[in-house]
């Protein structure tokens, strides 16, 4: 006799479960658990906006208060997804406006958001509190003004690396004088100057303001004035530091920072002159997060700053830090969990990039808590990778970008197979991996065999044949997102592992050898996959065996989408009809 848990009790238990993965598991137990769970889920996450319809989401989760949506594939960040591909927020906003009027939080990533959309948000959700747009585009500062002026309880407004049509700094003045609820404001990606007096007043009347990220147009004077009014900040993104060096300016800045006793996170620092860095020394001991990736500061100055940051957990920096600087980080920043080293030169032929594999080895040896790495350098060695894997088996995210495509181990001239084997084998909790350098199919055999927890894998310019893809699709059990560019394989591996694709969120392949015929076949056999061929030239004009430029395959319960542009071919499921565009307008 089965005892059923009373739904009230279940509800109470569920109120302690926040993780959506856990809630998804709860939903699978039985129908009544599914029902109870869905009625209590407040934070909804949709990793691919085309995997499910907005209506279905609204219907399933009537208590939804927070929605997070992702649109374009990750490689859109590197201009590999043509403009107009899709990822429109409007249909979602429309649907939520009608069915979930109590929505309070919207977080969008890589989506196209229009001013209309923003105005709709402002008008439809009475208790709207949080808007975070990451890598979004399609709107102007007018849309932001609409949010600022209408959302009375707005707490969070963050524009992270968005492409915004900047019509001027007026938007800031649209926050009504009565608005005092702001907790976080990030306008670092906007270009125009805002009126500093507007900003001062806004900051003065927002006692709960904890996070403020200014844009480069805010001067040092402006920064000083803001800091005086908001010494309670825990997160600060400065404006531009480029100013003529004046002793009084330095003293004022220093004093302003020393009053910010709760500052934990610092970013911005565009154009920072090294002479101004000592003004930051007073906050260094308390910093847990430091983003110097836009600061063209060089070595001795960097170390002077970093050696004071003993609590640092997250460091983003340019390769100007050099191996020497990383050695210093390894000895001073013992709490480091995340390191990102970005290139300082867009021109890749400047191959004397000052960091080598040695820098990362130092940090791996010295920082016991290191679990997340993003590292750009010119070349690497197997020995270094093996050392890193041995020293840091607790790595969760390892993204190595060897900038020279096909660069072998520069000491032995071998492929980097052995090195990545060590990483896959040694770092058992690895969830995200990006590989680079010269890699043969063997490397992927090792990754397939050992990287059992990897969920996201990024590959470029690697492998020898179809085997590479086959190893990955048949081996990596937890694989959810796979993105590949410029690798020499295609149809066979894809078709043999078609079932795997339904267990994944998405697969992106560009400049590989996948043929149109294979895409058609895959699409016909797998009704719950959307197979999108993104190609400038209509596939009809070429033989079916010729490769297509890009494919994007994702699982979906929403069926083929209706908003495809002319260069996206979603294959019709009916083979008699053949290939036809499904965007019926």
């Amino acid at each position, binding site marked *: 006799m089965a005892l059923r848990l009373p739904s009230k009790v279940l509800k109470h238990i569920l109120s302690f479960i926040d993780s959506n993965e856990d809630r998804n598991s709860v939903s699978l137990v039985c129908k009544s658990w599914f029902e109870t769970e869905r009625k209590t889920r407040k934070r909804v996450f949709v990793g691919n906006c085309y995997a499910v319809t907005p209506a279905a989401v609204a219907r399933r989760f009537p208590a939804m208060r927070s929605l997070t949506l992702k649109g374009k594939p990750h490689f859109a960040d590197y201009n590999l997804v043509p403009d107009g591909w899709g990822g429109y927020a409007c249909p979602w906003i429309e649907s939520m406006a009608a069915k979930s009027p109590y929505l309070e939080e919207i977080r969008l990533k890589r989506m196209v958001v229009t001013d209309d959309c923003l105005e709709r948000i402002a008008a439809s959700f009475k208790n709207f509190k949080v808007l975070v747009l990451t890598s979004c585009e399609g709107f102007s500062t007018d849309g932001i003004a609409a949010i600022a002026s209408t959302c009375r309880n707005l707490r969070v407004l963050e524009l992270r690396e968005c492409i915004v049509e900047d019509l001027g700094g007026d938007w800031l003045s649209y926050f009504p004088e009565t608005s005092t609820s702001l907790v976080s404001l990030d306008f670092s990606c906007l270009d125009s100057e805002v009126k500093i007096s507007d900003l001062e007043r806004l900051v003065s009347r927002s006692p709960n303001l904890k996070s403020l990220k200014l844009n480069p147009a805010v001067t040092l004077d402006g920064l000083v004035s803001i800091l005086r009014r908001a010494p309670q900040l825990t997160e600060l993104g400065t404006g531009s530091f480029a100013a003529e060096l004046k002793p009084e300016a330095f003293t004022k800045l220093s004093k302003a920072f020393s009053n910010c006793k709760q500052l934990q996170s610092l970013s911005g620092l565009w154009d920072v002159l090294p002479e101004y860095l000592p003004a930051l020394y007073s906050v260094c001991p308390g910093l847990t997060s430091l983003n110097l990736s836009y600061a*063209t500061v060089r070595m001795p100055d960097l170390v002077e700053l970093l050696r004071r940051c003993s609590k640092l957990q997250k460091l983003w920096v340019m390769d100007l830090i050099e191996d020497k600087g990383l050695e210093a980080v390894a000895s001073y920043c013992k709490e480091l969990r995340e390191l990102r080293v970005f*290139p300082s030169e867009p021109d890749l032929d400047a191959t004397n990039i000052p960091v080598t594999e040695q820098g990362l080895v130092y940090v791996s040896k010295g920082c016991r808590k290191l679990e997340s790495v993003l590292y750009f350098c010119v070349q690497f060695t197997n020995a270094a990778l093996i050392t890193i894997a041995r020293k840091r088996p607790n790595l969760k995210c390892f993204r190595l970008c060897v900038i*020279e495509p096909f660069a*072998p181990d*520069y*000491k032995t001239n071998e492929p980097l197979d052995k090195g990545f084997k060590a990483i896959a084998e040694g770092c058992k909790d690895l969830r995200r991996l990006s590989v680079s350098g010269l890699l043969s199919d063997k490397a992927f055999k090792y990754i397939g065999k050992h990287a059992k927890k990897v969920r996201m894998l990024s590959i470029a310019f690697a492998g020898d044949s179809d085997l590479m893809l086959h190893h990955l699709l048949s081996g990596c059990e937890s694989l959810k997102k796979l993105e590949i560019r*410029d690798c020499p394989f295609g149809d*066979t591996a894809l078709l043999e592992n078609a079932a795997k694709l339904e267990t994944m969120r998405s697969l992106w392949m560009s400049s590989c050898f996948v043929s149109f015929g294979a895409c058609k076949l895959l699409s016909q056999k797998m009704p719950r996959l959307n197979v999108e061929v993104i190609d400038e030239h209509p596939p009809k004009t070429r033989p079916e065996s010729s*490769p297509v430029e890009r494919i994007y395959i994702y699982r979906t319960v929403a069926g083929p989408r209706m908003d495809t542009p002319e260069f996206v071919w979603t294959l019709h499921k009916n083979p008699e009809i053949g290939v036809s565009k499904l965007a019926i307008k």
Partner: protein
Amino acid sequence: MITELEMGKGESELELGLGLSLGGGTAAKIAGKSGGGAWGERGRLLTAKDFPSVGSKRAADSPSHAGSSPPRSSSQVVGWPPIGSHRMNSLVNNQATKSAREEEEAGKKKVNDDHQPKDVTKKVNGKVQLGFIKVNMDGVAIGRKVDLNAHSSYENLAQTLEDMFFRTNPGTIGLTGQFTKPLRLLDGSSEFVLTYEDKEGDWMLVGDVPWRMFITSVKRLRVMKTSEANGLAARHQEPKERQRNQPA
């Protein structure tokens, strides 16, 4: 399950039309053009041969690029290296501001010390701070950078430059690739001489002044053909002329 698609006669016979942006010799087309930056001319799948600067693969290539069109750089491939567009724009802006400033300063006699580009000597509170400075060589399209801070003498510097431009060491690129005999950049005996531009915009032969004085006045370096170096301040100058050329 799914039957394998018949591949036909083999992929090597296929005309692979892949839309990679392979503009010959021009700079990265990363910013969006109409229709998005991802569309480009059709080309073949990029292989290691397209990146001839990579050490081991070079051996497999037919002999070098000296004198021919510059090797395709990886910056001409769309979306590589994988840097987000915001960051890329910021880097490109830095680069543009720097070269604009350098152009400006090259034309001026007097240099304003307050806003030096990062790879030029800066004077702050009497202390000199050095960074990387640019080095160009006649006949080589791609410039390099060298950190004067890391060198202690002219011989040191000359050695680094010779390694950079004339030899292929593991991990570095010999851009001309063909020279094997040692080059004497400093003694005037070879085909090339080492010259520098000082803060006043004059081009001088390297080696005349004491090292410490040199590094405070150098703005950039050039490996010039000896035949072209005739107009430069001669090696053996009158003392008073030398004083005139020193920084004020």
